[in-house]
């Protein structure tokens, strides 16, 4: 069967193709991957095509790129999976990073963020003679996040990074989690403290893009959410994020439904006068339109069951 692949070229040394979407057509089989196609272009049609690749087996992380607008690992993406009935597919470099040439991006930003989280084990106390004792469960749990091959797909499509380049980002935060969850690491408290700050765990907008595009099932967003929980447990409670979560839980526990007005007030912080004043206008506007939710919240009849669920499940986890 025939495949049509459109590649976004970026080559300041070749003005004729620079910026253009160049189309290549060739015969492929059921199992041909996007990477196979690009290598074919590079080897037989146009040797100037720039693409990073190495292992072809989704372990080296070199071939991250956007296919039909979404970040993927080219060696793991079958053409038939992304092209229904032979429709042309578009291949572009990863997002949120400067482009060096064609599909090759400058991952300096990516690595900078990784370095930012002090990505090395920091054991506390003297080194044992043999190995640190650690349960198989704790090590097996880390395999999930250690599966990360640093391909950049999550960073490419992160919607928070798109608007805020200071955000530490999904890959680095997942890496940070790897140490927070490692029983041998002695810096957990400090790590959580730093991540709790501006541009850290609370800046994730929970859009699930990183979970969706990760080729290795690392689920960075889930790790970030877990660290939010751990940060609160560790006593870091002075963020609007932690106040938001607490307020949300409180109103659902109390009445079975969310109390949006209280949520807005409590997340900001009762004593945060400038913050409260900043949201006053919308509060007033809502009131005037008849849609300011009742500050006392809504209550469902079955609320005692909800309270019981809270008590029972939260009691279990203690």
């Amino acid at each position, binding site marked *: 069967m025939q495949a049509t692949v459109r590649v976004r070229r970026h080559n300041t040394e070749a003005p004729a193709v620079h910026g253009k979407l160049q189309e290549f057509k060739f015969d492929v089989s059921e199992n041909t991957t996007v990477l196979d196609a690009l290598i074919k272009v590079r080897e037989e049609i146009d040797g100037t095509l720039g693409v990073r690749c190495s292992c072809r087996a989704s372990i080296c992380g070199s071939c991250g790129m956007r296919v039909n607008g979404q970040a993927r690992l080219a060696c793991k993406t079958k053409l038939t999976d992304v092209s229904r009935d032979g429709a042309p597919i578009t291949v572009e470099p990863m997002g949120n990073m400067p482009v060096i040439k064609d599909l090759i991006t400058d991952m300096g930003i990516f690595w900078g963020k990784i370095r930012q989280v002090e990505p090395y084990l920091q054991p506390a106390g003297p080194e044992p003679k043999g190995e640190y004792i650690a349960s198989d469960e704790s090590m097996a749990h880390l395999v999930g996040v250690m599966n990360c091959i640093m391909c950049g797909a999550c960073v490419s499509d992160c919607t928070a990074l798109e608007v805020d380049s200071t955000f530490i980002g999904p890959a680095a935060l997942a890496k940070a989690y790897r140490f927070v969850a490692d029983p041998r690491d002695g810096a957990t408290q400090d790590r959580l403290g730093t991540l709790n700050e501006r541009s850290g765990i609370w800046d994730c907008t929970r859009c699930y893009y990183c979970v*969706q595009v990760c080729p290795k099932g690392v689920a960075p967003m889930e790790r970030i959410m877990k660290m939010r929980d751990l940060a609160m447990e560790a006593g870091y409670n002075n963020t609007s994020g932690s106040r938001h979560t607490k307020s949300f839980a409180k109103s659902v526990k109390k009445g079975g*439904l969310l109390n949006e007005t209280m949520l807005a007030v409590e997340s900001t912080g009762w004593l945060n006068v400038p913050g409260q004043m900043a949201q006053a206008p919308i509060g007033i506007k809502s009131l005037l339109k008849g849609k300011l939710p009742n500050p006392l919240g809504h209550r469902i009849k079955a609320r005692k069951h909800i309270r019981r669920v809270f008590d029972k499940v939260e009691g279990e*986890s203690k």
Partner: protein
Amino acid sequence: MKYAWWPGCVARGATPELYTSTVAVLERLGIEVEEMHDFSCTGAGVLQERNRKLGDTLNVRNFAIAEKQGLPIMTICSTCQGVMSQAHQRVMRDPEYLKEINGVIAEEGLAYRGTTVIKHLLWILVEEFGVEELKKRFVRDLSCLSVAPFYGCYLLRPSDALGYDRVPARETSLDRVIEATGARLIDFAGKRKCCGFPILLINQDNSLKMVANHTGAAKDDGADAMVTPCPLCHLNLDGYQDKAARKNRPDGRKIDLPIIHFPQLIGLAMGIEPDELGFKKHMVSTRDMLARLKEQAAAVR
């Protein structure tokens, strides 16, 4: 088909026009629903963040209530849909986990067996009602309008929990409904991205940038309105649009892009009066958009 309708927390609070427009549309389409007054909030991902099992238990309780009545669940909020679908996937993949959760809700006389189907009104209309059937009910001419879709993250990702592998056509469901109404589809870059609502109260600068980017892009591409199946997206894209524009657009110029709820679009196309659909309640005025429609209708006559 009868459904167990979960309007969600916000539809009866901060976006009451979603509730009223849904009622108006369901009535006219003859879709029977029973509102689930015993359902709790789904957790919206926030409760899950704090304690996943807690969130899952609350949702399984909701599933069990619907199952007891033998009804599939209908949601009108992308976030409710996403959270419920994820919870459902988790318990279906892990029978031990479901057993534990059933242990908690047993006291209320509930036990979830796994048969509840959860679908957003958008999917119900497209997949069960059918686009062709819908078209027959569309009597108002919307061809003078250009409409941009905004799906809402939780309706799109993670795709395996939301059935996209089984029903690939779901990917473009909102696009196709817009086209079915006769309006011009504005297929802009951000339609599948994040509106910023989850960080509105946490990092408002970033949240507003997202609002400005997406409403601005759609407007620049020629949209007269943006339609969304998620009231949380609506809250951000509508309620904070002016502030977002002031802070992020060149010269702080307003964007003025009305954000309409999915049932409001259906209702408009079906010829229901705008007042009944709650258009007066929006922060970004829908007056100009509605005036154009009126003009269009008058011109034809």
